[in-house]
């Protein structure tokens, strides 16, 4: 028995949705416990006085990366069956900028705004309304931006494929970047703490 369980037919659509909800609740719980339901803390990332987002995201990345690598290596998971979102480099860069501007203005991203709402923060409620409005505008305007949306396609671009390096080497490089990053951001935090 190996994952992905849904693709291998171990459970159907209904159960998969239920599992998604349970995973979502845990995801939200850990975001909130990590302090990421607080806009002030999140914005601290952009002013360098609180690097919790960096630390939490990189911890999640290396935990998931090492987990997926070794689960796949020992046959518990078929990584080739894990869906990768195709890369359209230019529209995704533009999307990233829009996302970043919204993030620094509102202080929350889509996930953390939902988390913040559970603790009764009004700013997150306004942000979620804005997010739904944005989704609506995007949907309605899609025919106009369709060509741009599908421009500069790169297929399932992954670093091992682009850099022609082994997965193992990249795992090592990312872990080293994360650890050097953790040490570095602690120093940056201290430097910007009282500014």
């Amino acid at each position, binding site marked *: 028995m190996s994952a992905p369980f849904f*693709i*291998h037919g171990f459970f159907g659509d209904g159960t998969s949705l239920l599992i998604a909800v349970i995973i979502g609740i845990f995801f939200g719980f850990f975001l909130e416990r990590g302090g990421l339901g607080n806009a002030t803390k999140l914005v601290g990332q952009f002013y360098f006085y609180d690097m919790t987002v960096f630390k939490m995201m990189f911890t999640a990345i*290396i935990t998931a990366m*090492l987990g*997926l*690598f*070794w689960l*796949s*290596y020992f*046959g518990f998971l*078929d*990584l*080739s*069956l894990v*869906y990768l979102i*195709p890369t359209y480099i230019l529209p995704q860069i533009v999307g990233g900028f829009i996302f970043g501007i919204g993030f620094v203005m509102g202080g929350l991203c889509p996930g953390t705004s939902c988390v913040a709402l559970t603790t009764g923060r009004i700013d997150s409620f306004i942000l979620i309304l804005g997010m739904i409005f944005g989704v609506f505008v995007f949907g309605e305007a899609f025919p106009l931006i*369709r060509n741009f949306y*599908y421009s500069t*396609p790169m*297929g*399932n671009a992954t670093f091992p494929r682009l850099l022609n390096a*082994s*997965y*193992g*080497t990249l*795992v*090592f490089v*990312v*872990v*080293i970047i*994360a*650890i050097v990053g*953790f040490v570095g951001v602690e120093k940056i935090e201290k430097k910007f703490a009282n500014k």
Partner: protein
Amino acid sequence: MKLTQNKILAGSAIILSVFAVIAGSPFSSKKSYINPEQFADTLISKKQNLTVVDLRDKKDYNDYHIPSAINVNATRIDPSTFDQKNMIVLYSGRDNISKTIQYKFEKEGFKKAYFLNGGIDDWMNKIIFPVLLKNSSEAEKKNFENIERRSMYFGGQPEREDENSVKKIYRREGC
């Protein structure tokens, strides 16, 4: 030096990543996929008894399909109607359908069932419309002659990128 929890976690991550370098690839040695180049060469050589299955819609199949492919609806496919002795290559669009169906065949005991890695998109980009980029190395230029020959066999249009040419990339709109 005092061992804090953070240091232990960082150390564990480094140890696991060093072993990852040694392991190299997280994929199991038994390949469930075939790359477009290898698949094209298999088709050209005609050495194998090969069944090629297009799992896309009838309309997409009629627009274009890989030579010798048969069109079978993914929801109705029954591995028992295929010959286990044949090599079976399944392909679809930009999705996981061919991978899921390949697993179905594998579970039924098919030893030579593969899905086409990258689906029809990679087939079009790498076999039908291959492009030799500007500033390619001499080795790449030499290798491109083989790629061109292979592409021509399937009625493709290989292209050598220069000042006046525009890179062609096959794109299927929508998901």
